[in-house]
């Protein structure tokens, strides 16, 4: 009898496991590195190419200057400069996001396959990313560039994930056609 109860329970547990696996879906498709490289070549992403975000948002210099009463004014100027640079960087990241989104639309317009759910997810991710960047802008504007350094540094990742999405779509067409895509994109962007 125990054997039967064991089989009945385990049968349902196994069934639940299969349903769980089915609901989880397959692993997310990652873009080919060649497609990622091609996206980087086709679109010039100014915000993501900025490599010194860590230094820009690091407040060590500011703290050192503040520790000396004679240099307080200089510290304030440094903070203002960093603030303007951080705001400019966030603006570039926003522009990168919009460009990547436009590039994705351009690819789909050219006949690359996609699904409604995939497009909705991309749109949702774009809106979320832009909203987050807007919040970061406000925070930098109001409380300065050193208030949320970690979150601000991670803003670049929003563009990276959008770039991966565009690379996934680009990867659906043979690599031989990428040069043609690049020419058409340059023409449409001009």
């Amino acid at each position, binding site marked *: *009898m125990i*054997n039967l*109860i064991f089989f*009945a329970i*385990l*049968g349902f547990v196994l069934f639940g496991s299969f349903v769980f696996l089915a609901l989880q879906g397959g692993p997310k498709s990652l873009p080919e590195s060649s497609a990622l490289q091609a996206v980087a070549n086709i679109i010039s992403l100014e915000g993501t190419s900025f490599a010194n975000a860590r230094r820009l948002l690091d407040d060590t210099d500011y703290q050192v200057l503040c520790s000396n009463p004679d240099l307080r004014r200089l510290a304030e100027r440094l903070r203002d400069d960093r603030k303007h640079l951080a705001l400019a960087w966030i603006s570039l990241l926003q522009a990168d996001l919009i460009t990547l989104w436009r590039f994705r639309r351009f690819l789909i317009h050219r006949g690359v396959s996609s699904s409604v759910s995939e497009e909705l997810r991309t749109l949702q991710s774009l809106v979320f990313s832009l909203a987050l960047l807007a919040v970061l802008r406000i925070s930098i504007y109001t409380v300065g560039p050193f208030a949320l350094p970690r979150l601000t540094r991670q803003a670049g990742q929003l563009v990276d994930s959008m770039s991966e999405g565009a690379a996934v779509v680009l990867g659906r067409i043979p690599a031989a056609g990428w040069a043609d895509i690049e020419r058409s994109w340059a023409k449409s962007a001009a």
Partner: protein
Amino acid sequence: MDLAICLTAVLLELGAVVLLLRRSLWREYPFFFLYAIWLLFANSAILLADLRFSYAYAAVYWYVDTSDIVLRLLVVWEVFRQVFPKKSALNRSFSKGLAMVAAGLLAAACVAFWAYQTYVLPSLASPAQARLASWRPHLALDRSFGFAEALMILGTLVVARYYGVTCGRNIRGIALAFGAWASISTANDAMIDLANSFVPLFYYLRPLSFVIMLVVWIWALWVYEPNPPIKESEGLELSRWTEDWNRTISTARKLYGHD
């Protein structure tokens, strides 16, 4: 109702076989194709027995079902060989271990099957109960081996997921639907032996879940989407990685004073 389910199953099996033939998927999935052919043949025989030779229906059904238990291993093998292709490093690393686990599961299934004679079961006073008693060996065989097969499929999928092996729509659909059906079948068979009141459920739950499995198979095979090839690192890259890893381990040992 039984007839409708049986007819639907045969039509769906025919659809699956046609899909495998038309899209030349049978070359890619030969073991699964063999199983689909078997299902078509077997369920056509059951349908024929139901329509023309009702006195032989029960015998045909149970003999077909018993043979099916063994032939289902074709699906398990197809899923395994597609997820871990023969030349892949994962296959080289795990094939022996997983084969031993599979052999262990089959041995456990045999033991569980022989244990059915020891169950304390409801009395056989009425003819319906006596009829049910005649099913018991088949039910025990089905649940024991169905459980082992479902576990093998689940194990393959979990290991694949753990190592980031991507399954295409074809194998994913086949494996998940088969595993879910084998699990339901296991639970259902056990519940019938536990209490006779589950018998009406058995009449519909198992065949209906089988039909749903066939629908999922057709959906999975509708588009040719095999498993993407497993990308393996180049020898140089791998040896560099091994060096780095060994260095990390020795540093960690030094830090904790084990060296």
